[in-house]
Every structure is written in structure tokens, then in C-alpha cells.
């Protein structure tokens, strides 16, 4: 299990450093996304109870799960960065946090759109929703500390700290919200209450969606890492240029 986790992180970093691998991934993600759209809109059967709106589920669930995955990557990369201090792990954490924030924002928005017709309310303080909102707040703070830190080395360290502390906090937030919620019995059905009702086609489409978003996520993180790498090198070049101009 541990080796699988590290191997996949290493792969992610390797893809970030390989121009051709990123292009292959981009094309693959595009094709998968088209196929996935077709599957979720045309192939998946209409839910007998929830109706057409249930189709947002094939978008909402994978993107929410991918955002949790992204924050797990942030946590691991932050720990490794603090131990080894190699910039590539910092880039991985940063890229993953950015993509994670975008994904969690989309998950919240699609969740709200889904909740309105199904639960008859835009928002409810249900544990999963509330925890997701807190996640959003923690990782927005993570990105803020990066841009507000006085220097780059400090930005990297502070961000890693927030990445670790924030992730450790998530299970505690989750349980506290569950126990807090149990005071007022929830008037709504949980978003996955119909889990057993998923038929095999729906389940297959959902699995395909997971795959699609996993590839898409990998591509985005790899591309973002590559851009950060270019930015770093550009900065180096500019610095050395300025230095050589100063000498003449």
C-alpha cells in the first residue's frame, strides 16, 4: 500500500517533468471526458425517483473525491518537503492544492445545484457538506499564505505547515460536525442514500467517471507543476541576466 502511494506520487512528478507524457495525458483526458459526457447524458438510465437532475451525480461525486485525493497529496508532499527540502515536492503540493481548490469549489457548486431540486433547499448543514466547506476554507488559506509570505522559502515552509495541520484537522472536523448535527435530526436524505439503488449501468458510468476525472486531475497537476518549473527557471535566468548586466 505504501509503495503504491509513493510510486504514484513519483509518477505524477515524472509526468510533470515530461513534455510528451503531458501531451498524451491531455489528449487522453479530452477523449475520456467526451466519452464520459456521452455516457452520463445518453447511456446512464434516468433515475426513477430523482429524475434527470440525478445525472449531475456522475460529475459531482468523482470531482469531490478527486478534491479529497488532491488534499491527501498536498499532505504527503508537504511532509516529504519538510523532511527533504527538495523544491519538486513543494511544487507538487502547490499544484495539487490549486487543482484541489478548483475541484472542491466545483463540487460545492454542483452539490448546491443538486440539493435545490432534491432536498428543496440550496444548502443544509449536513456533515459532509459542512466538512467540504471547511476544507475549502482551509485550502484557500493555504493558497493565501503562499502569496502573503515575505519570501519564497518561507512561503514554502508555511504552506507545508498549513497543508499538514489542515489535513490532520479534517477527521476531527468531520466527527464534530456529525455529533453536532445529531442535535437537530436532519430533515433530508443523505446524498448517497440511494446508494443501493444504483443499478449496474449507473455504477459502470460512475466508475468510468472516476477514471476520467483521475486522468484529468493527473494532467492538471502535472501541467501546473511544469508551469511552475518554467517560472522558476525564468526567474533564475532573469536573475543571472541582471547580475551580468550589473557587472558590465
Amino acid at each position, binding site marked *: 500500500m505504501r509503495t503504491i502511494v509513493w510510486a504514484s506520487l513519483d509518477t505524477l512528478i515524472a509526468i510533470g517533468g515530461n513534455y510528451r507524457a503531458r501531451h498524451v495525458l491531455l489528449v487522453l483526458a479530452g477523449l475520456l471526458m467526451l466519452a464520459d459526457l456521452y455516457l452520463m447524458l445518453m447511456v446512464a438510465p434516468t433515475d426513477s425517483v430523482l429524475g434527470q437532475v440525478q445525472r449531475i451525480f456522475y460529475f459531482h461525486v468523482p470531482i469531490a473525491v478527486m478534491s479529497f485525493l488532491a488534499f491527501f497529496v498536498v499532505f504527503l508532499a508537504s511532509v516529504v518537503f519538510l523532511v527533504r527540502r527538495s523544491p519538486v515536492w513543494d511544487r507538487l503540493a502547490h499544484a495539487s492544492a490549486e487543482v484541489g481548490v478548483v475541484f472542491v469549489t466545483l463540487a460545492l457548486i454542483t452539490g448546491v445545484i443538486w440539493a435545490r431540486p432534491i432536498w428543496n433547499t440550496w444548502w443544509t448543514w449536513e456533515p459532509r457538506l459542512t466538512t467540504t466547506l471547511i476544507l475549502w476554507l482551509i485550502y484557500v488559506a493555504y493558497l493565501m499564505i503562499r502569496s*502573503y509570505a515575505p519570501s519564497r522559502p518561507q512561503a514554502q515552509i508555511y504552506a507545508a505547515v498549513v497543508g499538514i*495541520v489542515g489535513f490532520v484537522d479534517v477527521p476531527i472536523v468531520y466527527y464534530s460536525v456529525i*455529533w*453536532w448535527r445529531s442535535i437537530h435530526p436532519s430533515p433530508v436524505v443523505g446524498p448517497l442514500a440511494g446508494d443501493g439503488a444504483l443499478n449496474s449501468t449507473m455504477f459502470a458510468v460512475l466508475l468510468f467517471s472516476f477514471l476520467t476525472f483521475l486522468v484529468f486531475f493527473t494532467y492538471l497537476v502535472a501541467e501546473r507543476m511544469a508551469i511552475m518549473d518554467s517560472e522558476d527557471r525564468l526567474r533564475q535566468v532573469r536573475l543571472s541576466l541582471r547580475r551580468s548586466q550589473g557587472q558590465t
Partner: protein
Amino acid sequence: MTAFFQPILVLLWKDILLEVRSKDLVISVGVFGLLVAVIFNFALNVSPQQITSLAPGILWVAYSFAGVLAMNRTFMREREQGGLEGLLLTPVSRDAIFLGKAMASFSFMLLVEVVLLPVFAVLLGFSILSWTLAVTIVLATLGFAVVGTLFSAIAVQTRSRELMLPVLFFPVILPVIIGAVQLTTVAVGGEISVGLNRWLPLLGIFDALFLVICPWVFSVVTEE
């Protein structure tokens, strides 16, 4: 053992001495906490029937806002005259420096809370004689102080200091606020379905967890 605890006590004593001579922190934070409670009274128009449901929330919003204000100050003071650099140059472990600062924040917050509690009790009309309430305040304040000290050490270095601390602090401290409000609801005679047997351990676990993580992380943050 004494070699580890002595620097912590010296640091704590330094901050206490500083506070006794200047008196700016405890008074301003206390007045601010009181103001929060007064504003809530008008915003929510609290009636005697709602006390058990509203008072715990008002109490902990006031405490946590006041706490953030106090925490912002603890490292600002060190920054003003390059005090933090001096501290870090001393041959004392970073753990001890962290725990010393955290204990100082803990003592100040606890003092402010103990002073404000009877005032709140009079204004909102609830009884403060409860062991549950006492234990809750100590455990929650410890959590506030430990997490707050770490984040204020970070926030004080950033460009928008006063803003950065609450943005970092509140999402992480949320479980403590929820737990403290629940326990206080029990203490003032309200009812909750999931009782003491869960919230007290939650606060305890939170404190223990961050007492282990934060000193380590602090030593990473302050190395330069």
C-alpha cells in the same frame, strides 16, 4: 526534566512581567470580548427563554474573537524590537520556546475568560457554578492557545498580519468551538443529544494531538 521546563517557565514569567507592567493586552481584549457580547445581545434580541440555547454560542464567539486578538499581540510584541530573533538565538530548544509562548497565551486568555465569565453570567443570566464549564474552558483554551501560537508565529511574518491569523485559525479550531458550545449548553442546563462522553474526549484528543504536532512544526517554521 527541570532543564526542559525551566526555560518554559522563564519565558512565561517574562510575558507575565511584560503584561503586568504594560497591562494593555488583558484590558483591551477583555473590553473587546464584552463588546462582542453586547452586540450579540442587540443583534439576536435575547429573551430569557432562549438563554440556554443562545448564551453558549455568544460566550464562545466572544471568547474566540477575543482570543484571536490576544494571539495576534503575543508575537507582535516579540517582533517590535527584534525580540523573536533574540529568543531564537538563545540556547533553548524550539519546543521550549513554543511551549513558553503557548503557556503565556493560555494564561492570558484564561485570565480574560475568568474575568469575563461572571460578567456574561450576569448579562445573559446563567449560572457559572459548574465543573463541566470549568473543564471545558480549560481544555478549549488550551487548544486555542496551542494552535493559535503556531499560526500567529506564521501570520506575524506575513504581509497582512492581523488578517492572516483568523483566516488560518478559525477553520482549524472549529471542532473546539463546536465542542465547547455543546459542553457549555449542558453546563447552563440546556439539552444536547450527544453528551459529555463524546465532547470532552474530542477536546482532549484535539489538545493532545496539536500539543504533539505544533512544537515540531514550530521548530520548522522558525528555522532560517
